[in-house]
């Protein structure tokens, strides 16, 4: 079994659509794991029916019990993130700035800072329109620790794959945009990363940062150029980038509204009646299979 991730650096490059197309093509031999837990659209692309859900606990949050607070200010001095400030009656923690380190708990002489478990979101196991499995999650908006939830999604997908019969050939991971914590959590240890390069200035710049990250993580990459044909210069730059990082270019998808219309109809490209769109999905699938040595 292979773990294959979709990543791009830039948001909106087409990761989710390509991940859905590959998932549809692998059918019952594939599992989709939507690790873009900030903006999870795999369930829309694949038509998820939720089979089971569970709460995801994000870890500790902190609050100051105003009636126990002596307003000494030790907590505010301890906080390196400027998350604690004096209010009219006591000190209070600004959740938006709190990094959840808990240093304030140790330093409060009155025991007024209390830790509590925070509900971070939910983890779902669903069936797609084609009865394959999708593991996905939703973070509570404004919540923290998406890297931890990404690991939980991956672990669940791996556990389901290990028990599956017929055996699973591939877990398809849809990574978040960017290059930070949840992206690293999505890409660590994967067998193959498909870098979706949006053929444009921002798409190429952001993909370049991603290739550098992947190189540091020693992960193998192949490339798909998406939304090509708008600007010949950036089409060429996208090709050059893939070449510079020795990432075999397996597909160049033109900017064409037939892809978007197919996504909107919930066909995941592979099941599209449009022969052009379905053909592109089939050839993507076979190129990814061979790159992953499946």
């Amino acid at each position, binding site marked *: 079994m292979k773990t294959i991730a979709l990543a791009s*650096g*830039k*948001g*909106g*490059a087409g990761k*989710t659509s390509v991940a859905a197309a590959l998932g549809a093509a692998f059918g019952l031999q594939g599992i989709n794991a939507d690790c873009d837990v*900030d*903006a*999870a*659209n795999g369930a*829309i*692309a694949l038509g998820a029916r939720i089979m089971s859900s569970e709460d995801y606990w994000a870890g*500790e949050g902190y609050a100051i019990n105003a009636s126990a607070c002596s307003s000494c200010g030790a907590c505010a001095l*301890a906080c*390196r*993130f400027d998350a604690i400030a004096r209010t009219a009656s006591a000190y209070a923690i600004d959740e*938006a*700035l709190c*990094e*959840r*380190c*808990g*240093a304030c708990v*140790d*330093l409060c002489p009155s025991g007024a800072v209390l830790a509590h478990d925070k509900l971070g979101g939910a983890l779902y196991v669903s069936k797609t329109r084609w009865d394959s499995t999708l593991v996905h999650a*939703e*973070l509570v*908006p*404004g*919540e*923290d*620790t*998406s*890297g931890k939830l990404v690991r939980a999604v991956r672990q669940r997908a791996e556990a389901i794959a290990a028990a599956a019969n017929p055996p699973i050939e591939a877990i398809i991971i849809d990574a*978040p*945009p*960017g*290059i*930070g914590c949840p*992206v*690293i959590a999505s890409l660590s240890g994967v067998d193959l990363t498909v870098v979706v390069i*949006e*053929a*444009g*200035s*921002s798409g190429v*710049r*952001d993909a370049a*940062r991603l290739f550098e*990250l992947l190189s*540091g*993580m020693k992960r193998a990459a192949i490339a798909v150029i998406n*939304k090509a044909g*708008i*600007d010949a*210069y*950036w089409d060429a730059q996208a090709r050059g980038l893939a070449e510079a990082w020795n990432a075999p270019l397996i597909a160049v998808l033109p900017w064409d*509204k037939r892809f*978007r219309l197919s996504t*909107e109809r919930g066909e995941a490209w592979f099941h599209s009646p449009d022969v052009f769109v379905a053909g592109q999905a089939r050839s993507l699938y076979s190129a990814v299979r061979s790159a992953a040595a499946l």
Partner: protein
Amino acid sequence: MIIAIASGKGGTGKTTLAVHLAARLAKFSDTTLVDLDVEAPDSDAYFPEAQRPYTSAAVSIRIAEAVDGEFADTSACASLCRFGAIVSIKGILRINAGLCKGCGRCLRACPKGSIRERPMVIGQIGETRWERLTLVRGSLAIGDIRATAVIDEAKKRAASRPFDFQIRDCPPGATCPTVRAAHGADICLLVAEPTDFSVHDLAGALRMLQGMGIARAIVLNKAGTGQADYQSLAMRYDAPVIAEIPWTESLAKAGAAGRRADGDADLAQAIDSIVSYLGALS
């Protein structure tokens, strides 16, 4: 006035809106555009007129390290670390520099003085000017996970420059980096496309802003490319739709090239609506 620009979904047009709004406001007022999408900062490409290179300063935080490289586990610090940065292997503690957020909790808790701190570079802040526009750009070091610390530093830099308007180009998503980027803004403009994906993620961003108590408005981008219902969300979350930017081939070309389209009539009209909406607020 501080205006955050966010979206939920990536690729909806946050940077496009941020750069055009900043360019317009800078014609008649001191404006700072701060790129807080530190994992993918792209706004600078849209200002080739601005002085190059950017001045650059490293962002560093104080991280914990063991005085002698490693030390015996006395159980005082490892269990306190909420970031998993201190691991005990056979009774010996090691600190993972990449995971430490520099909170100082372990340092204060250690009874033996086995922990000290050292600076670690986690990103860069760039800055340049063009006429009345100040451009500030935060950039996370590749392989680092401490985006929020770079966002904080870029916000501090931007706050230290006098401005009538500060435009923040925020990261996609609706969790910690986006929260940090939007925190303290007077209003957040959410850029949405009329597609199922975008509207789903718009809902998350609206809930985030509602929780933070930040005023919000929606700018519809790529209008005409889908029929998804964003109007119900606009009603439910008290976020008026203040402008629509149509999808046109010429705007798509400018976007791909990373070029401003100040002269584009459709875009100029949308920016006009946004400027007059902001003017009525202030």
